[in-house]
């Protein structure tokens, strides 16, 4: 009997609390989404404010949260695709150093006279290290 009285009260309180928290949560989530989606912080900051206005214009607490969730899922997907692409580029010897393992200094160094220190000695295994495409021009002499 006590449970049948207390449980609905607790649920009511919880729902009420969630309704109060949801605009704050939506603002936080939409900001996170903007910074996750855009690599440029200035652009992300502007978009965060803009998306906050969009969420604000959306009627109803539940709709606000679902829209925010949509932005968050989309941003997470875009970010993971971007990170995957970056990782692939840095790990792929064909993209990084060519089939013979030589790092393509000539294509990456606009100045052909630049000292290309990796081209002659770097192997595919070295190039396969998870590094974010460092410039091979004149490094590691």
């Amino acid at each position, binding site marked *: 009997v006590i449970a049948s009285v207390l449980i609905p009260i607790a649920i009511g309180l919880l729902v009420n609390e969630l309704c109060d928290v949801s605009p704050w949560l939506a603002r936080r989530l939409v900001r996170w989404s903007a910074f996750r989606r855009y690599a440029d912080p200035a652009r992300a900051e502007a*978009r965060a404010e*803009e998306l906050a*206005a969009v969420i604000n214009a959306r009627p109803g607490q539940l709709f606000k949260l679902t829209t925010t969730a949509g932005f968050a899922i989309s941003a997470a997907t875009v970010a993971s695709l971007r990170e995957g692409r970056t990782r692939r580029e840095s790990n792929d010897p064909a993209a990084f150093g060519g089939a013979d393992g030589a790092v393509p200094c000539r294509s990456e160094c606009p100045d052909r006279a630049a000292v290309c220190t990796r081209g002659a000695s770097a192997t595919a295994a070295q190039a396969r290290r998870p590094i974010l495409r460092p410039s091979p021009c004149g490094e590691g002499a």
Partner: protein
Amino acid sequence: MAGPVRVTGPLLDVLEIFLHAAGADADELHGWAIMKATKRSGPTVYGVLDRLEHMGWITGRWEDQHPEPSKPRRRFYRLTPTGVLHARQMLRDRRPQALPRQVSRTPGPALPGWLQVLRQDGAT
């Protein structure tokens, strides 16, 4: 402008809305108004807006202050002259029935319902 344009349904929808809005005295639209008019999700619409802005077809400006105090500012977008040309050309090729007959500042009586919404939103 970037390379060739990837033409998608959402892109055509957004361009259509912009062109119709330009003829209805509400040529500046904010994201929520576009979402409502196209019935597309937020990420889809903003993906298109990103592309259009990157290509230089639209330009955006922040409003000074939201009409209601303590609300976040909105960003309004409008087609650039280049964007108008490209949008009309693209719609003529892909969706000729959606192309507004002429861009006029005085909308006729048979204005679609969603356009009325855009005008109200643009006025606020």
